[in-house]
């Protein structure tokens, strides 16, 4: 039987605040009287990846040896949108934590991550990161709130085996949305599989619609000085929704389930029942390593572009610092990030050991990514780990080439997740109601989006 009243909900939400009161505003570490700085760090691999865990713990020991005045306490904490607020409220957020690109704008806006602009040594590796990627961790004023340590861009994932079965060339994937539509029809006609699919719920529908809008020529928020304006009701987004409508109601190449999140689409793709979908290129490990799809079946192509296309949306992991950290902890945290995530670009031994551990744990080395360091440094890293690369990089040559040519457009800067949630409904309406008016839906979404950006 259900528990009593909505008070249960109030109690649940407020429990975080209670813990906050009692936790003495911990930053997950401390500065001791003997001058030692203690930091807690996230993303310690679990015991299901013993080699990676051992490497991580060895790296902690090596770091502490190199920095005798810093103590590192690793934890298996990983980012989850629905636990982060409680973690912050309860004072258990690690000093250094990895969060996805998609969350950065919200965290920055709510002041829930530390401003590290002054703490980054511009002469160090962290000061010379790929500017295109670094932008996701900055606000409109150029202040920096995190260090991107892994990046990818949104791409077109396609099943090479289904392409072959449908008589399409798997080495020549679609480059425009019209070609995607034709390929979807061919797959639908010539195989038992569904031509195309798209995410629609848990804010992913809006995420992909935003990606589509970028590729057709418009962002969803315009920045003018310090003023952000909602621009949801635009031609590019309308074209993207028309594209969905055509595939759903005219071509019938979008299947029958339109309540899909990130995991659902990956499951369907890995099961070989779907020809194509828009997804981050980093999903390789998920569909191949975790879901068991044949590596030879996975094709990754650059995001198709319209003539007016702006580029593609980026994704990845940013290391952020607890906003309650002391200046010493911020400095120690950045030292740790540089040591953990960037040593492999400067130290061949570290690079090779890391790659060997990854392979030993059954994960992938050489996945398609957007380098967070400059191209020369990244190419050098690839040459070091060449013997360990276990993915067929020749299957996504075009994508790899595009990472240096196709611009990466950042997420909407104000309340991106809330904007995506609004757009989820728009996408779902177009896919489940044949008579849905795209103009009306966009006008309504524009109104809601304006409320988000209102001062």
């Amino acid at each position: 039987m259900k528990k009593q009243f909505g008070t249960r909900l109030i109690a649940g939400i407020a429990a975080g605040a209670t813990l906050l009161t009692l936790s003495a505003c911990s930053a997950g570490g401390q500065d001791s009287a003997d001058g030692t700085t203690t930091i807690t760090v996230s993303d310690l691999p679990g015991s299901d990846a013993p080699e990676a865990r051992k490497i991580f713990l060895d790296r902690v020991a090596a770091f502490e040896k190199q920095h005798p005045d810093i103590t590192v306490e690793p934890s298996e904490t990983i980012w989850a949108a629905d636990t982060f607020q409680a973690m912050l409220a309860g004072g258990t957020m690690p000093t250094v934590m990895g969060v996805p690109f998609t969350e950065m704008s919200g965290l920055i806006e709510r002041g829930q991550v530390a401003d590290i602009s002054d703490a980054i040594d511009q002469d160090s590796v962290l000061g010379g990161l790929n500017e295109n990627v670094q932008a996701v961790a900055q606000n409109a004023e150029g202040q920096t709130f995190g260090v991107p340590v892994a990046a990818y861009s949104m791409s077109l994932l396609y099943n090479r085996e289904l392409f072959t079965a449908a008589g399409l060339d798997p080495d020549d994937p679609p480059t425009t949305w019209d070609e995607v539509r034709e390929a979807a029809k061919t797959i639908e006609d010539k195989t038992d599989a569904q031509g195309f699919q798209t995410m629609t719920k848990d804010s992913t529908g809006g995420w992909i619609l935003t990606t589509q809008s970028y590729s057709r020529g418009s962002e969803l928020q315009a920045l003018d000085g310090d003023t952000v304006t909602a621009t949801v009701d635009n031609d590019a987004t309308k074209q993207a929704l028309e594209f969905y409508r055509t595939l759903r109601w005219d071509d019938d190449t979008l299947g029958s389930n339109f309540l899909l999140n990130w995991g659902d689409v990956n499951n369907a793709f890995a099961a070989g029942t779907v020809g194509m979908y828009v997804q981050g290129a980093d999903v390789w490990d998920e569909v191949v390593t975790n879901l068991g799809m044949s590596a030879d079946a996975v094709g990754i192509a650059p995001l198709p572009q319209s003539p007016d296309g702006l580029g593609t949306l980026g994704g990845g992991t940013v290391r952020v610092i607890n906003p309650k950290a002391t200046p010493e902890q911020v400095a120690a945290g950045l030292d740790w990030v540089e040591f953990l995530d960037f040593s492999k670009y400067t130290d061949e031994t570290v690079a090779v050991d890391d790659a060997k551990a990854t392979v030993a744990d059954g994960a992938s080395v050489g996945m398609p990514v957007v380098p967070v360091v400059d191209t020369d440094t990244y190419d050098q890293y690839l040459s070091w780990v060449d013997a360990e690369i276990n993915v067929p990089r020749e299957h996504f040559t075009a994508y790899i080439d595009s990472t240096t040519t196709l611009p990466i457009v950042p997420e909407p800067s104000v309340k991106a997740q809330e904007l995506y949630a609004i757009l989820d409904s728009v996408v779902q309406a177009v896919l489940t109601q044949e008579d849905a008016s795209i103009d009306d839906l966009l006008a309504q979404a524009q109104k809601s989006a304006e409320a988000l950006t209102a001062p």
Partner: protein
Amino acid sequence: MTSLLDGPTTAATPPDARSASPAKRRSPVTWVRRGGLTTLLFFLPLLFSFGFFAWFPIVRGIVMSVQQTNFVTDPAFVGLDNFAAVLADPVFPTAVGNTVLFTVLALLFGFPVPLLLSVVVAEFRRMRGFASVLAYLPVIIPPVAAVLLWKTFYDPRPDGLFNTVLGWFGAGPLAWLNDGGLALPAIVLQATWAGAGTATIIYIASLMTIRTELYEAAEIDGATVLRRFWHVTLPQLRNVIFVMLLLQLIGTFQIFTEPYIMTGGGPDNRTTSILLLIYRYAFLNGDYGKATALSLMLAIFLALLSIVYFRLTRRWSAS
């Protein structure tokens, strides 16, 4: 009828107990001598547990509903802004409408089912225990697993489980959760299946307490099964029915797990409930002010609903 109700209540209160104040009856010394300290000692853990884990968070929740907080800097007092923001949210009326519709449908289908099921099971001469276990079985399945199972049943493809069954009769296939008009009723069906077991067991237990003489007398008077149900069973169960109805009303207003897992509130917010909206505010948008404001509004509404409900049903309960 009201005077009948009030009469015994007044008469049942001893006159001396009403007139004597606690101060006159016992001084602090006599209180200690009579074991008051020991009582207090035993009471403290309870007071601490409830105070710390229930009352204090509730009070904090109320305070947070008039604050804006990010859990980093000091919260700012914003008056009723959070309440205004919730009321201005275009999804809010949709969520309220969905929740009310869910409640109505759940009561319409979910309330009579366990009642009738319990009457049928209670009629069993043999294997009543087995039938009770069967009725209760859905409750034993963890809610998340059960919801995921039903989500699979609602597969919109022609070879989905329910669509296959419909196909046998030449009907369907239906889009189920992907159809804005069907999604909410589909969730009601699952929730009724999942919740009927507990109510059935409680009704069966109550039915066992009804004196058989009443049924025998009714049978001698020539009452049919339906008349016996209407004139004997229902009146004898009325107090249990009142409580169960109220609990179900409160429970259905707090529907969350089913839409959260099955549809995420879609399609096009057609299954977004009030609690799902609260969840989004708090845990996805990080806006605890709006989340606690809406929680408080829901709690106040349910409290008022309970009071009205008790007032409306008091007459029948007492008769």
